[in-house]
């Protein structure tokens, strides 16, 4: 390490390069800041666009998936013959596993009063396959729907389910409003499709 006395050509190139790169970085940073959302973002499924294809169960980097079924009780009809609980064509409404649509047995059916039943999702068992969601949307009110559970989700830089989602239903949402729970039959606030 010899101390340099004079200002050499190499110093000049070095300094010029550094200045150029520094300015380039600053410019890039400034453009990005001007376009930043000033917020953190997380991934969420828009239940109004979900087509219940079943890929949420298989495409998540986690196994089982961070996508679980959520029950918007407000919308539930509390039916005895629940399209999300029973396999199609079941007439004998027993809670045997062979009668249930859910492959993981993750829906609990509880009697409330004649003729109403409450359906509870056991999240630890749910694999996010959307079979019940499809059943509920086809034969019921559509109160069962999929959501990404943020206590499980690792918030990957690019959600691998979003990439595979055929209906582009998985989007970045602001982290302070991390869920799109169906509260109504329409999108809240009349957002565009």
């Amino acid at each position, binding site marked *: 390490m010899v101390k340099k006395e004079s200002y050499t050509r190499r110093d000049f190139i070095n300094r010029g*390069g550094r200045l150029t790169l520094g300015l380039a970085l600053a410019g890039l940073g400034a453009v990005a800041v001007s376009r930043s959302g000033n917020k953190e973002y997380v991934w969420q499924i828009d239940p109004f666009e979900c087509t219940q*294809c079943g890929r949420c169960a298989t495409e998540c980097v986690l196994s089982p998936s961070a996508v679980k079924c959520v029950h918007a009780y407000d919308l539930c009809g509390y039916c005895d013959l629940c399209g999300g609980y029973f396999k199609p064509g079941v007439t004998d409404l027993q809670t045997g596993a062979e009668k249930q649509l859910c492959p993981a047995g993750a829906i609990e059916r509880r009697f409330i009063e004649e003729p109403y039943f409450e359906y509870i999702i056991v999240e630890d068992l749910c694999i996010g396959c959307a079979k019940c969601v499809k059943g509920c949307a086809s034969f019921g009110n559509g109160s069962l729907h999929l959501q990404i559970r943020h206590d499980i989700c690792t918030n990957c830089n690019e959600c691998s389910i979003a990439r595979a989602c055929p209906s582009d239903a998985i989007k970045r949402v602001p982290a302070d409003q991390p869920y799109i729970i169906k509260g109504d039959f329409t999108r809240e606030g009349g957002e565009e499709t």
Partner: protein
Amino acid sequence: MNSQGNKENSMRGNGMGKKVMQGKWIRGILFLIFASFLILGNAQQRFPKPEFETGYEQPDPSTPEPRLQALEYFDVALLLAVLSLATWLALNKRSRRGILWLSVFTLAYFGFYRNGCICPIGSIQNVTLTLFDPAYKISITVLLFFLLPLVFALFFGRTFCAGACPLGAIQDLLIIKPVSVSPWVRKAVGFIPHVYLGLAVLFAATGTDFIICRYDPFVGIFRLDAPVTMILLGAAFLGLGMIFARPYCRTFCPYGVLLGLMSRFSRRHLTITPSECIQCKLCAGSCPFDAIEAPTDEKIRTPALVKQSMRRYVMMGFLLPVFILAGGWMVSRSHVLLSRAHQDVYLAELLISRPELKKDTENLDIQAFLESGQSMDQLVEEASLIRTRFHTGTWILGGYLGLVLGIMLMNQFLIRKKEDYTPHKGDCFSCGRCMDYCPVEKTH
């Protein structure tokens, strides 16, 4: 009870049917726009919420909160702290042991605890997407993860690679018996990161994919959960890394391209010796990454040779535009192939070549497209727009790769005068191994 339930249901079913019919004409126009939730809109009338008499209280769906926003800022602060500490350890304290323990911490926190996400390497794609997609909003933390290591590299060299990168740390800790690789092989594989960076930027800019994250070989290990293929890829990299040190960093890492560029012009850099090099050659074999350059042999570096090489260097410089154009032309040939990675282009091509697939109820992508109400013309228009972007993008990518290749060849002619054993500023990861080999250190 069961039969009663059935009756109840069948009655409700009839009512529903009638109301669907009534509601249909009103919704006729809306159908086109809100086709996706027509079913839901009608579903409201299917089974009204019951009036409970037994005092049943309806539970609320639970909504566990995501990670606190403050913790994301904490991560940025921690990255800044780790970078500063790594820089101090490499440049001032000159402690290899310190850097080693810092990289263990990085591996534990940013790797296994934070699951390797978000990392500066992947953030290249977020920044690219910000520049090309006005709808995309980058979060400040991601931007800082991208910028901080680069700013540090511009001033102090690649200290990020030494102490703050979990991907680097996991490979660095598993270097067992590194072998020296011939410079030609190193130069050749050193071209791959440019290709990877270029493709990653192209795919991110066109909104196709985040390939860096998708093919990150170590993130599955950090998460302790990944498809078998990715685990095998990660294990293969780590296995190779025992003899070819830091294989991902040296032959793939796209962020390393940017860091290397910054570091080349860095204001300060790690030095092997704390004072004057005594040319003892002890450090020469100490670098597992072959990043230490020997002094130039003055017997070989004759004025005639210097003159000749300078001439060749300048001539190569004049050839650069040819390299850029040739690269652009060659890579742009692949734009049709590359654009197929985009879902819309893939789908449009598939439906044009095999329209009978529209009847295939098993094909989820096609079914979702048909349900979306988008017309075939719209899809084709969208796809051809994306393909045009790929055409432009591949020209730029090819031009960039041609330029890189040209500069790499130019540098082959250059014989820089070096008096001492010095780390190559672009390639050196600032890991500090060489410092322990310097005898001057001991006497100092």
